[in-house]
């Protein structure tokens, strides 16, 4: 069931109402039943997989916390992480080789479970004694499709608090705002950009170079609008049930270098990789200086790339970012020396850095978005003019697809840059127009401005 279907949204609203009507002691079980019910609408056999993986990790966590020796702890930790990684790799390989359907959210819930095992290994007190509360952690339905990857301690603390407390109106209203904002990002911006991209991808060689370049940039913006839209809905739905997930985006298009961009893009994944991979690696290799930095960055970025899929294209995507991030890290001092001397030079540096970062991101997406190596090369050759482009321009596609593209690209870029001034404007409007009027009008916009052929969420495939 899709997050943007009216049935899902109505069901989620009704479920939230029922949640607060229930006695506190039933709420965890209720949320667990809801989450498994949601998952079951997608696949029953893979629900069994989710149950089995969660239960085994629960047992492994209990053992890690209980056993006294470091060696035994490491044994259970290694077994748990190894098992989860093997599961992910097996399904990703099965998907690549035999075209097997990838279990919904496996990449996300396996990373959550790994985070839990590592946290328990580091600190026994993180170990969750309540079996049902633990089972809810990987399965929590607003987060299972595509994250955000919430940390265990943060989740369990909020779960206990919401189970005891009455409904927090401010949080619920914030959730409703996020859901509406997410729907608008997805349905009004991402889906329109997707229609343009799909039209070009039908016959890429027929379009002129300007359209090809625009389409490449458009994909980065679409990915942002699509994924940020999903994340807002997911966080918003979580808030309706008293659980606030971490944000995934913080104005990524305002980043002036690729390192900063990764601190603002898919943040729950990058912070996971930083905490559980990059930092331990760097600690282990700290005597090696710059080599250690480059090595740790490369391993981290390759893991991020391959987390999406075990393909050559995702590997190259990771390697591209390893080069970009390493170059950024190694030139940090030099850049500070050149651009940091005066406010004017800082502005110039920022002015150069922001578009360069976007271009670097867009270039790497040429690998990320394509399935096969040949497909990636075809795109790259067209973008860099190594293959002659066609002559078709805007006239090659339907007007309802072509005409809104520039507006939607500008809106995606604006929101992706943190929507400067929007908070102030919203505050002013909020003084005059009551919230319910704003929401009512937002619903009308969503109802009338969506396109017929909407697409599923891009990150839903991982």
């Amino acid at each position, binding site marked *: 069931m899709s997050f943007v*279907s*009216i*049935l899902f949204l109505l069901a989620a*609203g009704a479920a939230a*109402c029922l949640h607060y009507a229930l006695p506190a002691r039933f709420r965890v079980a209720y949320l667990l039943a809801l989450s498994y019910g949601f998952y079951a609408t997608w696949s029953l056999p893979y629900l069994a997989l989710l149950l089995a993986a969660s239960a085994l990790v629960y047992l492994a966590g209990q053992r890690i916390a209980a056993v006294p020796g470091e060696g035994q702890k490491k044994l259970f930790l290694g077994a748990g992480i190894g098992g989860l990684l093997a599961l992910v790799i097996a399904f990703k390989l099965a998907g690549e080789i035999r075209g097997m359907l990838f279990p919904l959210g496996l990449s996300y819930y396996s990373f959550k479970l790994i985070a839990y095992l590592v946290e328990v290994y580091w600190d026994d007190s993180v170990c969750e004694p309540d079996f049902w509360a633990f089972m809810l952690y990987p399965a929590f339905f607003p987060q299972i499709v595509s994250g955000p990857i919430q940390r265990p301690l943060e989740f369990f603390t909020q779960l206990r608090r919401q189970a005891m407390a009455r*409904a927090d*109106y*401010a949080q*619920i*209203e914030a959730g*409703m705002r996020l859901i509406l904002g997410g729907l608008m990002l997805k349905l009004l911006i991402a889906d329109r950009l997707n229609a343009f991209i799909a039209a070009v991808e039908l016959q890429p060689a027929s379009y002129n170079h300007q359209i090809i370049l625009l389409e490449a940039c458009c994909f980065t913006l679409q990915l942002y609008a699509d994924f940020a839209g999903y994340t807002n809905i997911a966080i918003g739905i979580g808030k309706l049930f008293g659980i606030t997930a971490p944000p995934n985006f913080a104005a990524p298009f305002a980043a002036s270098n690729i390192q900063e961009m990764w601190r603002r893009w898919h943040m729950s994944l990058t912070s996971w990789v930083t905490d559980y991979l990059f930092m331990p690696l760097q600690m282990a290799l700290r005597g090696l200086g710059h080599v250690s930095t480059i090595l740790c960055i490369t391993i981290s970025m390759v893991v991020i790339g391959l987390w999406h899929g075990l393909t050559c294209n995702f590997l190259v995507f990771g390697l591209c970012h390893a080069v970009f991030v390493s170059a950024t890290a190694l030139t940090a001092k030099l850049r500070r020396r050149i651009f940091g001397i005066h406010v004017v030079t800082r502005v110039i540096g920022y002015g150069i850095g922001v578009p360069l970062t976007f271009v670097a991101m867009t270039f790497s997406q040429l690998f990320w978005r394509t399935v096969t190596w040949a497909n990636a090369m075809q795109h790259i050759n067209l973008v860099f003019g190594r293959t002659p482009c066609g002559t078709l321009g805007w006239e090659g596609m339907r*007007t*309802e697809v072509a*005409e*809104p593209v520039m507006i939607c690209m500008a809106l995606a870029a604006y929101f992706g840059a943190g929507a400067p001034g929007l908070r102030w404007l919203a505050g002013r409007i909020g003084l005059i127009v009551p*919230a*319910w*009027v*704003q*929401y*009512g*009008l*937002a*619903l*009308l916009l969503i*109802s*009338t*401005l*969506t*396109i*017929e052929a909407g697409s599923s969420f891009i990150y839903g495939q991982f």
Partner: protein
Amino acid sequence: MASSNAASRQPRHPLLTCALAVLLFIFIDEAAFRTGWYQAKVSVFSSSPSTLLTMSRWEQSHVTPGMREIAIIGNSQLDEAFYPPAFTQQNPNFPYHIVRLTAPGTWPRSWYYLLKSLDPTRRRFKEILVSSDGYKVIQDYRPLPDDFQEAVNILPLVPISDWLEFIESYPGWQNRLKIATILLFPSHAYAADIQDVILHPKIRLSEYGDAYDKYHFQPWKFEINDSVNVSLAGFAMDPKTCKVLAMPLDDPSIEGGLLAATTNFYNHDQREENERRNADFDVFWYTKILQMYQGSPTKIIFLQVPNMPAPFCNMAPLPDAPDIRDELPKMPNLSFLDPVMFAKLNQPQYFRDEIHLNLQGQSLFTAELGDYLIKSLSGGQS
């Protein structure tokens, strides 16, 4: 003081906020789209929904009392075949008012709801002439029965009491969910049209002005397609091999339609299945119309519109194709016009494309049907 400020900043109960927002949305949705305001004032004449809505609103408020109205109901084929102004001009003393209820892209499902909204007492019309593409049902260009556009066309005319039945008439739960969504939130059905208005406000506003100046929203003043002067005269095909022998026109769109009609475009392999599907759909909705008029003094008369300028191999009915005359319930107020009546118009020179009559064909058809109306209403024929 501080505490009272804090209290005033307390958010409204989210359920109340949510309920108010949904109510506001529903209010605007209903006021603009369910009442037909949008279709009549913004989307005027740009599409079948607006044509149907404008027509139905006009006819609801312009009833000629005493059963002195004849309804002509059908889609573009009948719309372009019968032209009431020409008939009225030729027969100024004809005592009945012809109510033209033809709109392009509509099917029996739409006609049922149109008649239901226009004739709540079932005593408004003396006769209702219902169009049929063919008594022997053919496999054709129809997107039945999951035609989403038909739901968009007819949406404001479906009363709440019929919502369930209307939803059920669409196959598959995904189609039904889609139909339920637009029944609940009609603005969603007109999303594409609204977006067109936003993207091309000048063109759409000038269209509105032109339409207003030209028609003053009187449906019988609707002009038929400008291309009706086109003739397929000279078109020839071998009825055995379906090979096109002569293609006289130099118009790619007309040529495309003709070639589609003579090739396997219409799923030759699933022909029987398509014929049965179309027949089931037609019979179901025609029966609903007949049941609605059971015991009514209104006569329901089916007519087979000329629909084939040449015997297209893939569209002509199979010998054992279902025949609606056999499948519809027998009723005293039901009759079928003899298809031979208009058979002579199934010639290329009377058509503008593979299914629609041109001006010459329209003139002949209008005269022929007009003769029938005059005779039948003076008691000469029934």
